[in-house]
């Protein structure tokens, strides 16, 4: 083989290798993306820093909150999703500031700010090691995003390389949407009660 052909082959191989590297190198966002910890509805999921389990998922058109001397009804152009569960810190006190509903089309919905002051809502609960606490999450999402959704829970929404628990919301269907849910404060171990109307 002449030296010209050899040089040409070497350049072609190098170009192909560089092209491959360029197109397969992960971006900064992918390198520092959250570390996923998969879980299932109804099962306790253990990440390194915390454990969480989702027990019930309620769907409703409206949510009425009842507090001392004050009743408020929250309507929505979408669907209210109220998630009940329990969470616990594993080695040190922490607060889980981020919960998101990942719809089947990839859109993420953050916790609703309209129900941010109800008792037991996840970002307001300080979790302690050895002390499981009941937690509540409330989302407002379009009806089309209910089926095939995934619940994402992490310490913060923005930190790099943080653990993110991903719980597939299997068997959660729009057929189960109730007209109204009433969320009231409770003095028991679970600081709220939920009933449909």
């Amino acid at each position, binding site marked *: 083989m002449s030296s010209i052909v050899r040089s040409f082959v070497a350049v072609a191989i190098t170009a192909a290798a560089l092209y491959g590297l360029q197109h397969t190198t992960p971006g900064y966002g992918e390198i520092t993306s959250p570390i996923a910890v998969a879980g299932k509805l109804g099962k306790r999921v253990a990440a390194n820093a915390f454990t969480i389990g989702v027990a019930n998922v309620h769907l409703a058109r409206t949510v009425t909150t009842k507090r001392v001397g004050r009743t408020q009804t929250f309507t929505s152009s979408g669907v209210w999703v109220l998630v009940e569960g329990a969470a616990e810190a594993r*080695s*040190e*006190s922490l607060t889980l500031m981020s919960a998101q509903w990942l719809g089947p089309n990839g859109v993420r919905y953050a916790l609703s700010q309209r129900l941010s002051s109800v008792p037991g809502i996840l970002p307001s609960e*300080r979790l*302690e*090691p*050895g002390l499981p606490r009941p937690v509540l999450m409330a989302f407002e999402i379009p009806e089309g995003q209910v089926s095939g959704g995934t619940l994402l829970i992490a310490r913060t929404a923005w930190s790099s390389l943080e653990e993110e628990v991903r719980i597939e919301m299997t068997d959660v269907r729009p057929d189960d949407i109730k007209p109204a849910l009433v969320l009231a404060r409770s003095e028991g*171990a679970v600081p709220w009660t939920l009933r449909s109307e």
Partner: protein
Amino acid sequence: MMVAAVPTRGERLRYWFSLAALAIVLPAAILVNSWDNLSEWRSRNRHIPLAVERGATQRYAGAQWQLTSLTRLPEGPTGTIPIVAEFETVVDDPELLGKGPCVVVLTDDRGRRWQPTFLPARAVRQARPEAVDKPRCGAFPNAEKGRTIKMAATFTVPGSATGLALSVTMAGARPEYLVFR
């Protein structure tokens, strides 16, 4: 017709020496460039505990520290146990003490760490009202030499927590920190 010059023995030696030197020079260059970051990371992760027995005082961050009581209150209805830690410090060097905020953590023999509660539980307010009125360990901007500062922190732990110890860290005195056993 051009004829390629045959490299001399000296040129060959220089070539291989340069190639071998790369194996040393490249890691050295990376190390030199990241030395500051490595030093910072190492100092951030260095912890030197100063163990203090119950009732004893310990000089730390420009003051004499003492744990006056670590009280375990009766178990609450949800299986939680409130813990009240009361401690004090006699200021020796106000400037050194004022260098950084104070971080207080309760630990157990399994290495679990509890931060102080935001608001003392009702049981704490009833059992130790004088502790509720004491300030938390925070910053000491107005510390005066010779003054005694009394502080308290409350925690919520499970019944399974044993071997509790109070750890106090002043940012200005790191990597050292106090552990009251």
